[in-house]
């Protein structure tokens, strides 16, 4: 589905991502975990076309590194960015419609809006409320829903459970599982390493810009080094 090969990202003099390689197979949940500043967001932002980088990002046999963000989402790769980034003055429904901007199938969009509402019933009750007036958790749900609205093959979620109450974290992970079961591929960034490793088919651990460990989620859960550093 997607292969990242020896990716480097620089911000001026800062070398934020130092040769990261990832393999994201179709229909899998792959997770990226690591401490603050490890380069997780930089990696997915580069895949999404928001940052420039060096190396290669191969999607369907083509190197998409350096293509603009608006083209990447048209190729079926969506990003729910870190910090929600809800458009505060647009209503919940308009935010979802914006997520479906690249689509022209009116009926399909209407159906998917209903589907997102069925995943997050709280959004439905607030369909006409301005995005900026939602609570942090509701905004997070909207950000995830919005990323799904482009009907992507690969969904990248940058810390979707940030700031959510434990019960809602469980719900978000339930939904991530459901989305995978629909055949979509997911690249998940998480601070909640235990939940992420439990659900992921495969995981990469990043430290200061490099992959230091990788393996199937269940395997990393039992790894003593991971236990000590990330599972407390």
């Amino acid at each position, binding site marked *: 589905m997607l292969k990242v090969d020896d990716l480097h990202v620089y911000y001026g003099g800062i070398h934020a991502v130092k040769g990261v390689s990832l393999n994201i197979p179709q229909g899998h949940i792959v997770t990226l975990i690591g401490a603050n500043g490890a380069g997780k967001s930089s990696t997915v932002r580069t895949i*999404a076309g928001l940052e420039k980088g060096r190396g290669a990002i191969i999607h369907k046999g083509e190197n998409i590194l350096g293509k603009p963000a608006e083209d990447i989402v048209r190729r079926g790769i969506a990003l729910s960015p870190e910090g929600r980034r809800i*458009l505060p*003055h647009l209503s919940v429904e*308009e935010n979802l419609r914006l997520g479906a901007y690249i689509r022209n199938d009116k009926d399909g969009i209407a159906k998917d809006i209903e589907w997102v509402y069925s995943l997050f019933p709280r959004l439905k009750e607030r369909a006409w409320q301005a995005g900026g007036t939602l609570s942090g958790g509701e905004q997070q749900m909207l950000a995830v829903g*919005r990323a799904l609205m482009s009907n992507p093959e690969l969904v990248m979620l940058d810390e979707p459970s940030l700031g959510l109450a434990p019960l809602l974290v469980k719900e978000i992970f339930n939904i991530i599982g459901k989305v995978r079961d629909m055949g979509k591929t997911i690249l998940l960034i998480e601070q909640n390493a235990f939940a992420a490793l439990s659900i992921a088919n495969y995981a990469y651990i990043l430290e200061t810009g490099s992959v230091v460990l990788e393996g199937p989620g269940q395997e990393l859960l039992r790894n003593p080094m991971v236990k000590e550093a990330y599972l407390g």
Partner: protein
Amino acid sequence: MTLDMFIQHLFNALALGALYGLIAIGYTMVYGILRLINFAHGDIFMLGAYLVFFSTIAFMPAWVAALLLGLTLIIFYSTFVGFGKKPPVWFWAGVALAAGMGCYYGFIAPTSFAPPWLLAVAFAIVVTSAIGISVDRVAYKPLREAPRISALISAIGVSFFIESAAVVVFSGLPRPVRQPEAMVKPFIFSLESITGNADSLVRVTPLAIIVPVISIILIAGLLWIIYRTKPGLAMRAISKDIETTRLMGVSVNKVIAMTFGLGSALAAAAGIMWSLRYPQIFPYMGMMPGLKAFIAAVFGGIGSIPGAMIGGAMLGFMEIFIVAFFPELSGYRDAFAFILLIVILLWKPTGLMGEKLREKI
């Protein structure tokens, strides 16, 4: 003041306010997205008036019209479709039309472009809107990543450039505009039944009605685009968060171009109506209305479209009525707007409907 005079002034104020509003919307839309004051906006207004003038009164050669149409087409095409993609039908139809016109009038039957009045207006609006898009492409787009002050200086440069080029091409002499007969033949209403005075007459020209009515229709159309269509949704989104909007697949430069195109079309419409109401055009005619409309936009809250409308209307009313009540101040007419600007900036810098300014200019 007598009732008949009051009503007379009311009509004048309505028309002036509507025109300020139309121009102010262009400033506010561009500011909302780019945080840039498009100083060339007043000159776009002037170009709209000149284009109608040249195609209806001082007939331009028809091959010039064909050339302008062709260039307009190329600008729209390269902006909204992009080279290298399969051109849509309207593009080929337009190319055929422009090329056919160009060949026919250039080689076979050289003549002047003298379309019916309404067609000339449509022609002027479309060409002006393409000029607005080109201004963005040439003067602002290369500076998107540059500090904001660079784009501002570029805007002032473009404004001087258009004005000077207009002096060269159109000559600096003011030209009288012939008002269509039907538009200036006044209806006369008698207010005798109210005031009991046989001299209470109100003269209303059709133009005084048409200007605000057309303005309101245009603004309604714009609001429909902004609040009911997909590109409008993208425009509203971009004004708050460019990066996230790009993530949704919106091509930012296209939306910005559309903003310039729409704003310039409104300015052209305002310029045309202005030249009918104050029937004289000259290359610097856009400066004062442009500045005042900008003040109206700041007054209403720059970045806010309802604000621009309200600001424009209020400025129009103030100007007319201050002079009406204090005729001895009429020499200071243009100063009111600037006093208003200073008061607003001191008292409520965000304007009536504006949100907090993120950056002072």
